[in-house]
């Protein structure tokens, strides 16, 4: 995967310097996260547009989902074609718990994460042994298996109609998620916390182990890394964040639909990753915002959405041959390189 490598190292660092560097970058991440949340929190008081808030909520749901996929694709080199199943599982299990059990939202949230973790561990244990295209196929098969289960188990999941009738959203701790502003703030908080957590995973020693597995699994296992265990761990972790995205989506549409678990949602996530770029942490987030904007504008202008989207994909796949953020980062690196050379001479 020479073309697609997240955070190519620029040089080797000694252990103490690595730790100092890691600490500094952790503070930087934290301040960026806080600043982002502050800006997002002020937004509704500045603009007052309800459509804008809805847009940001959708971005949060998809952003959590696509960034978690990048932990697999960009960092570990595992091309999952079925990551959307965890988006669907998150939406459905959260929706079912809220509709049938009637517990407070935070309890349902934690319970859904637990359910997702168990399912992901079982599915992952079977999948991560397979490599490359076979891994892609087996994850796709599981995705479709879950989709068929949702469709055929109509008495429990509502079948092809989905979970209808709205989700009860009882207020908790003074937060009322049936209020759009509260839902908006909660989604933004989840997005920022989720991204920060994923960033920590990516920058931790474990994250660097994943990069090594991507680049040279034989060598990783030779120096004592249990490749299978590391892959399973990241598979489950990524599933948890995808499930969080699914829960935000379920809260937003106040229900869950079989399309949330259909293979196209995985295909779309892969496309978003490629659009934004898989070599940077924020690439998928950029891709999410781009695709949602594109989606909203094109569907308003023409009913032949597929042709337009297809041409855009072709432009990225054949024209740029990389995602937008990859392209930008490379251009900046090239410019710095040139400036550095000029400075020295």
């Amino acid at each position, binding site marked *: 995967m020479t073309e697609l490598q997240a955070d190519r190292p620029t040089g080797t660092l000694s252990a103490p310097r690595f730790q100092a560097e890691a600490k500094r970058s952790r503070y930087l991440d934290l301040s960026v996260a806080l600043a982002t949340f502050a800006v997002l929190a002020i937004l509704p008081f500045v603009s007052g547009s309800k459509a804008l808030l809805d847009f940001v909520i959708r971005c949060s749901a998809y952003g959590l989902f696509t960034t978690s996929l990048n932990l697999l694709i960009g960092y570990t080199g595992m091309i999952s074609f079925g990551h959307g199943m965890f988006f669907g599982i998150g939406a459905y299990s959260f929706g079912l718990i809220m509709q049938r059990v009637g517990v407070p939202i935070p309890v349902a949230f934690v319970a859904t994460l637990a359910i997702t973790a168990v399912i992901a561990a079982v599915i992952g244990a079977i999948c991560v042994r397979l490599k490359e295209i076979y891994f892609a196929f087996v994850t796709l098969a599981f995705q479709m298996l879950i989709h068929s*289960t949702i*469709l*055929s188990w109509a008495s429990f999941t509502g079948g092809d109609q989905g979970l209808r009738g709205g989700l009860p959203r009882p207020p908790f701790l003074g937060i009322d998620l049936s209020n759009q502003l509260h839902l908006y703030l909660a989604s933004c908080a989840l997005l920022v916390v989720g991204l920060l957590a994923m960033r920590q995973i990516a920058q931790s020693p474990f994250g660097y182990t994943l990069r090594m597995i991507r680049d040279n699994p034989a060598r990783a296992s030779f120096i004592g890394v249990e490749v299978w265990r590391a892959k399973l761990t990241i598979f489950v972790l990524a599933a948890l964040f995808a499930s969080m995205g699914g829960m935000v989506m379920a809260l937003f549409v106040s229900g869950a639909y079989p399309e949330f678990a259909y*293979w196209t949602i995985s295909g779309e996530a892969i*496309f978003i990753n490629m659009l934004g770029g898989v070599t940077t942490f924020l690439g998928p987030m950029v891709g999410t915002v781009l695709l949602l904007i594109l989606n909203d504008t094109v569907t308003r202008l023409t009913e032949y959405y*597929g042709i337009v989207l297809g041409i855009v*994909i072709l432009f990225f796949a054949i024209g740029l041959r990389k995602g937008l953020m990859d392209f930008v980062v490379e251009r900046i690196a090239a410019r710095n390189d040139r400036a550095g050379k000029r400075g020295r001479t």
Partner: protein
Amino acid sequence: MDLYALAGCLGSPACLVTQTTSGLIIGMLLFLVAAGLTLIFGVLKVVNFSHGALYMFGAYFAMTTYQLTGNFALATLCGAAGTAIIGLIFERVFMSRVYGANVLMQLLVCYAFVLIFDDVVRLIWGPEFKSMGMPATFQVAPFFIAGGAVPPYYLLLIGVALAAAVVLGFGLARTRIGKVIRAAAHNPAMVSALGINTALINGAVFALGGLLAGLAGALAAPVRSLTPGMGFSVLIESFIVTVIGGMGSILGALIGALLLGLIRSFGSLGFPLFTEGLMYLFMVIMLASRPTGLFGKEVA
């Protein structure tokens, strides 16, 4: 679940014949699509995600030709040939640019064309369901085998697909072109070094894959309804077939397709709502236990 219906059918010869023939026609159509898919993967190492769209084109071409001329043989020919040309253009103009690139880039180019082709069909033929209707020649009373009705068209379909399987198997095993294709699958650099034009082979393999998918679409047109996006379920099923049979193996594709066809036709009796799920379950079990499939040689 309706296991009584399944058991009842297995005990009655008439039902057994009906279900087996319907399983065979599903299987034979799947084989034609999957054979192209597996051939393209074997030689070019590309998973052609847009193969279902080629099947769709075959069906629409055949329908239009049949409506214009009323000749079903000509319609089948046009469906197959037209799709082969589309496959060739698709390979030469677009796919050949991403051979060296990442697998994801190849999938993306195919994904783009799935979207574009579906919309092109919607643009030309409209979004609604279309039906070609059974050609007049085949509107005759069905045969009865052991009390089970078998429409004559089903026999034609099975016969044509079997003939295609034999020609394909024989061509790959015995002819010079077949040997060159197999050599290119094994070691393209060496084949190229021996003075054989590999770009030509790549194009030819894609055209052949398109031809088979178009033939399947044309043969399916009288018995299935036509709609943009009709290729997708066929594509997923042929993926399952190639995975079961082993990527790159024609014999594997034939056996995998027949297995899947029978699972579908008998599964729809026993598990009417979970027929699709049954296929995916089968795929998961196959991948988990033997990732290279029944006849795959490559080590995963």
